[in-house]
């Protein structure tokens, strides 16, 4: 299944897949940095979304985790996800987005500062239409 974004002016003018979503998630300077690669007729456009990432309900999600500096845990308790990001050890988290909701994403530097608010983020599972809207807005703001 694929949806087509309505306006090329928003950035991506090719279908945005909602059955499989790939997100790059980098733990850097004790904060999460998510980014999406959206396809356009001119090629791929990387859209950074900061500490928040959205995925559509029903999608298979692949998060490519990495970190250029510290070791960071990656935890989404609601979805029972526990992984880590570390330099030179890229890893992939794969899960099925089966519950609409806003889920807290935590990332504590290993043996670092506990309760570091900067290391918190959000993983939001949207209905596909809402996901489209969010992607469109992110692409627009990123321009």
């Amino acid at each position: 299944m694929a949806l087509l974004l309505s306006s090329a002016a928003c950035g991506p003018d090719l279908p945005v897949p909602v059955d499989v979503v790939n997100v790059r998630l980098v733990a850097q300077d004790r904060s999460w940095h998510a980014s999406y690669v959206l396809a356009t007729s001119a090629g791929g456009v990387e859209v950074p979304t900061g500490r928040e990432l959205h995925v559509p309900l029903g999608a298979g999600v692949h998060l490519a985790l990495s970190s250029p500096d510290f070791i960071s845990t990656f935890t989404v308790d609601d979805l029972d996800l526990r992984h880590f990001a570390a330099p030179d050890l890229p890893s992939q988290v794969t899960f099925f987005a089966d519950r609409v909701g806003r889920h807290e994403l935590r990332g504590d530097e290993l043996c670092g500062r506990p309760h570091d608010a900067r290391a918190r983020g959000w993983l939001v599972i949207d209905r596909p239409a809402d996901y489209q809207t969010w992607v469109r807005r992110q692409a627009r703001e990123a321009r």
Partner: protein
Amino acid sequence: MTVRTVISMVIAAAMGASGCRRAEPLPVVGEVPAFVLEDQTQQPVDLGDLRGSVWAATSFSTRCTGPCATVADHMATLAKAVAAAPALKAVKLASFSTDPDADSGDALGQYARGHGADPARWMLLTGPQETLQRVVRDGLHLPADSRSIVVVDRQGRIRGTFDGLAADWEARVRAALENLNGEPATDVFVPAGVREPWWLASKAKTQQASAAQLAARHDFHFTDRLGASGITFKLQASTDVGRFYTANHYDHGTGVAVADVDGDGRLDLYFANQAGASALYRNLGGGRFEDITERSGTRVNGRACTGVAFADIDNDGDADLFVSCVRQGSLLFQNDGHGRFTDITASAGVGGFGTHSSGVVFFDYDGDGLLDLFVTNVGKYTREERWDDGLYAAVRDAFAGHLHPDRSETSLLFHNLGHGRFENATQKSGLVHAAWSGEATALDADGDGRQDLYVLSMQGHDEFWRNAGGGRFERRSRQVFPATPWGSMGAQVLDWNGDGRPDLYVTDMHTDMSSDLQPEEDARKHDPKTFFPADFLGTDGHHVLGNALFTNTGPLTFVEESDKAGVETGWPWGPSVGDLNADGWPDIFVAAGMNYPFRYRGSDVLLNDGGRRFVPAEYILGIEPRRRLVVPWMELDCDADVKQDICTGEQEPLLAEDTRTPEQRHKIQPRHGHITAWAARASRSAVIFDLDDDGDLDIVTTNYGDLPQVFISDLSQRGDVHFLKVKLVGRRSNRDGIGAVVAVRANGRTQTLFNDGKTGYLAQGVMPLYAGLGGATQADSIAVTWPSGRQQTVRGPIQSGTVLTIREP
């Protein structure tokens, strides 16, 4: 009076006592030298205790009848003013003894009471004469019978000296103190609340209330007498941890070991250091020590060291010394029997490996009567750059090192060839161990008389190496210990349940990094749901999620009973074992806690309740809480260190209940100028021994980035204490008798002591075995099984208090 003092008095007089206009800043005229002394309640006080406070200093003597007697009365007046005046809030007073022989004990207590000196506000400081002279005469420029009052700012800088007998002394001194107190505070406490944890009082109260139900003897008390000991050693943290906090293995600290290095019958102390110099202290008796590092030839500086072990490597009857270090080479020193050492590292063939060395175990694995040496290597956690202190900088992902095979280092087994020479026997012995190991301990786990080796891993499974004989080891890890802690730090062999078999207690610190347990959860195991992600472990995932107590139930058979026995603790480093209450059952001290930027956790005392379980007693026995829970951790110049988190404002004191959004937290204002960041005090290693030779066991700790603690027990002053001390002298076996098993029979039961020399985390020592006899006034017999296999029995009665030397036939 010095020229400098006169100038400062003139300046101070010119400033006057007017409170109408804003006072000019007082000039900086000197710095107070670092010191370690004790107050009128025998609590240690060091310069760090006064950091962050404005204070006034005088000299005093309890026998003074001249000007200093009047100055003392004026200090009492000042103490009342400080208590009452908001402008003097948090100001402290410190009077330094000029006659420490007279200014101690009851005389000092009486003097303090007579002057109404509350130690929280007015400290009467006494201690070693040389320390006092250095601080009072040379630092504060206060002679005996001085009439001067010195004012000091929050950073320990002298800002003025006043005539304490002048008519307007009070107005002038108060004005100066108010002036300094009005300067911007430069202290940041990380995390917020670390000075006065909300949970501490209730935890102490709960434990103290439990004493009534405690069957194990607990009617005694420890007092930290560091200030009277003459020990000034400070464990200097590496730049990585102490200046720019990054998580790496440097913060694991260093060890402290004991032996009688000069043959005078008293047990001396050696402290390994990290970014500072090591120190050897000679025991003078009565709880006092002198620093003999230089003249002993054992000073190590400019390299980060970790473990320390005393052992008689040449069977000549004295304690030689091995110090393990990071990258820049471990060191072996040979003792001449009089406490003078020669560095024989090169000729012995035990140095120059460039590894990240840590734990040190001397044991005789091939039964030839010579102590062999096992040195654990952690793995490569540093990079090529060096800091100004000469230490290699740490990598930022040190705790993922186990997932990088190229960073592992093989631990080292050295076979003792005699005559001070060793050969690297790692490969030919088959003991090729490449886990991330900071410690190891020897034990005879299968009862075959040979010493096996349990090697801890701080990032993975512990490994068990069975001694197969013939100088060979075989790896039997998972067969014997299917599940071990993942983050093991320290281990001790003991017979905790009195069945005569060697049990094994292992502390697990790294698992405490996996989730943030709350204070009330320190005695709980971690939840598997919040343990490290499976892909981070690098193992099969079968772990004890915290400390382990492996009870030996037969040859190569162990049952994990940590929860049943009650030995889970929070953020533990190293355990030490000793019969603290002399009841014939081994107790445990766990050096514990983490510094910046974590919350305070205390060390633990686990009293053995008759072999049935252990009960916590650190608050009952006076080990906890420390009077001051924090230590100055980082000194920052926020005009220069603009990127440091504390300076940018991003590193605001942390609160568990902080509900601010990330955006709100990012609006914190940057800081400027000088900042002192304070962090929790925390211990690493400890040794339990009879420091003052009074028949009970005392405790000395190392504390990271901090001074040690010297806990003196008053058990022997509380009434009769029954005990034996047993020194072993091997003949066919190694001279220290390492590997011997000693069974003491008294009052119808036998207690079993294992002479493995392991005294605590990162440490091995040479000292008599201590056997408490409980209510028995004599022992019926002592049976020794020597490493050579010989059995020897000394028949009683052997009277309590005996120090018995048993020589192998």
